[in-house]
């Protein structure tokens, strides 16, 4: 039987690879910029407190806010659809598109669209779906998956993109980012004008006005949501705040934490479809509010993770993410936040291992603009996994035996003696170079100190004991 594909096996394949090196250098840039953004803005910490309060309040009143939002959006001429899961969400979108006879669909970046795998579904229905965010465009062209929630091609270098464009678009090779950008823009421009429908995500919805907000650093979001006849916005049901005042705080925090910008280049506010006096805009606006497991998370121990504003700061701060890259997680939402969201959305099997892909160093919580207690929730999910009997038997038995031994002073004293004696044949010069069994994970790359001949306890009893 072959070994199952796990976080570890994916990480092993990625560590030290070209892809992992690209991630490492990409992240360094992000970190410097984020730090600068908080340095130059002295109320940064207060902003985090306010963001947290706003998001927790929204979660506590989610049903009310969504109700207000739907009413206001209706007044503005838009329509809300409620999707219980990915299947429903895809079906609603496909029905809308078929009704309006859409053939070419342009998309701006949306993680929830990845979550519900809408592209594949619409393509099966005979539509052409074109990603228009530069990163997502590259990912689609490469037949790859995004590896970072805000920087989908963090795992590729400019050279990789140059080679891809040369191969797929038949342009001369270049690794100049401006030139690559120009090539993509030229390729996409015509599609925007021909597209029948646009699909976007929603960074934040505002209940009091029924608006959806989309932040981007490229003009594609604006094109996607204004040029085609129909605009479908896919929205995770937690992505809402009560008032504009709240939205302004969250947007400020989001830009600073995500990219170290004071504000994203484009902040698109969409309130209903085109009005008669508007020069452009879609005839129809549909917002599909997607549950897909979020209600389950909301009712459990990890509810707070829904306060996440998807800035990606925890990914950039995480030593595990930085080392292995987003693809090691094998799922749409990677890094510390993904390790909590993923088992919540898709269930513990096979995702229970993701909460273990962390050293619990706490760097994620330290940078989280919403002060989400990520390590605490990783521990809660580990507790759940252990209670479900998912840990390997050697670990479960070993820990249980260890616990009983160290909590019995006589047994502990004798265990230390035995450990020292038993390690004698496999040590040299006080060090063990190779351990059998599960301990081999350690000695694969590290020597291990041999258990002391005389423990501190024994030394104390001899020299200081009364």
């Amino acid at each position, binding site marked *: 039987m072959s070994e199952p594909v796990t976080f570890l096996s994916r990480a092993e394949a990625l560590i030290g690879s070209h892809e992992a090196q690209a991630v490492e250098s990409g992240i360094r840039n992000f970190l410097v910029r984020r730090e600068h953004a908080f340095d130059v803005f002295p109320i940064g910490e207060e902003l985090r407190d306010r963001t947290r309060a706003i998001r927790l309040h929204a979660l506590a009143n989610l049903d009310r806010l969504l109700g207000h939002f739907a009413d206001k959006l209706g007044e503005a001429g838009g329509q809300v659809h409620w999707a219980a899961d990915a299947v429903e969400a895809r079906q609603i979108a496909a029905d809308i598109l078929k009704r309006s006879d859409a053939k070419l669909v342009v998309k701006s970046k949306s993680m929830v669209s990845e979550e519900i795998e809408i592209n594949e579904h619409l393509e099966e229905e005979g539509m052409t779906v074109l990603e228009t965010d530069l990163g997502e465009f590259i990912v689609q062209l490469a037949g790859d998956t995004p590896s970072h929630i805000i920087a989908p091609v963090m795992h590729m270098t400019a050279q990789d993109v140059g080679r891809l464009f040369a191969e797929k678009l038949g342009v001369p090779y270049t690794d100049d980012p401006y030139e690559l950008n120009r090539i993509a823009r030229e390729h996409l421009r015509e599609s925007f004008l021909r597209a029948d429908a646009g699909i976007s995500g929603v960074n934040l919805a505002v209940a009091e006005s029924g608006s959806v907000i989309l932040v981007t650093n490229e003009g594609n979001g604006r094109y996607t949501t204004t040029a085609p006849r129909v605009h479908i916005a896919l929205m995770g049901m937690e992505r809402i705040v009560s008032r504009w005042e709240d939205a302004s705080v969250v947007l400020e925090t989001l830009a600073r934490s995500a990219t170290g910008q004071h504000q994203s280049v484009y902040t698109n506010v969409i309130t209903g479809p085109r009005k008669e006096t508007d020069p452009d805009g879609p005839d129809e606006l549909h917002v599909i509010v997607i549950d897909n497991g979020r209600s389950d998370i909301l009712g459990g121990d990890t509810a707070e993770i829904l306060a996440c504003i998807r800035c990606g700061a925890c990914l950039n701060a995480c030593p595990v993410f930085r*080392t292995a890259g987003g693809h090691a997680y094998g799922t749409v939402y990677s890094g510390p936040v993904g390790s909590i969201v993923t088992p919540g959305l898709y269930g513990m099997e096979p995702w229970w291992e993701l909460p273990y892909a962390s050293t619990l160093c*706490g*760097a994620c919580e330290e940078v989280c603009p919403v002060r989400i207690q990520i390590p605490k929730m990783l521990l809660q999910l580990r507790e759940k996994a252990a209670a479900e009997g998912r840990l390997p038997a050697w670990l479960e038995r070993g*820990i249980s035996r260890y616990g009983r031994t160290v909590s019995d002073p006589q047994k502990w004293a004798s265990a230390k003696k035995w450990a020292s004696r038993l390690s004698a044949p496999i040590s040299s010069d006080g060090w063990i170079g190779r351990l059998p069994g599960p301990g081999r994970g350690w000695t694969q790359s590290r020597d291990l100190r041999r258990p002391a001949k005389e423990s501190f306890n024994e030394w104390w009893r001899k020299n200081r004991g009364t």
Partner: protein
Amino acid sequence: MEGPQVQLFVTCLVDSLAPEVGRATLSALEKAGCTVEFPVEQGCCGQPAFNVGLVDDARTMAAHTLDVLDETEGPVVVPSGSCAAMIAHHYSALFVGSRREEQATRVANRVWELTQFLVDDLDSSLSASCGGCKVAYHYSCHGLRELGLDHQADRLLSDTDRTELAGDKECCGFGGLFSVEMPAVSTAIMDAKLDRIVASGADTLVAGDVSCLMHMEGGLRRRGSEITVRHIAELLGDPQ
């Protein structure tokens, strides 16, 4: 001047793998004027079990630790930020709503990490020395982020020759059982750390946690590196 009477909780790793760190901690505390007691029945704080989610086993160890420490009086000093944080921050959650909740809070309030106790409580003039060595200091994660340990070591090390270590507040990749369960990831994080330590020009790596040190020392040895690895207590106290 009569110093305080303190209880030494050495941690299971120091006790069994690095007893010299326990002796150095004892010496440092005595040099700082403390009368040190060592509750001989002590075991493990329970963190290995807690961190993999085996909370019942963690409770077994925590309950024993609480019983042993609760029989004593005065500050409990721990030469590990990680184990000190376990007792100080996580015991109350482990026993919330149980009959031990009060005991957990009582003991947690008495716990100090070694450098935290020397600097923040005693305001000791004790100063680290290592005979002209060049020190790279690693701020271990749990001490740094759960106990706010940073200025304490800086002050204690102010007479030593400190090198600038890039990423000195970033994880070394140990992560407890993570180091055994996900060895490739743990090692890759460590390797980046060791490269930076080597690049800093230090000849001695110092930290406040034996766990992280044992991981990095094991890696340095495997590389054939000449860099010496010491717990900060060993630069404060005398070997005995």
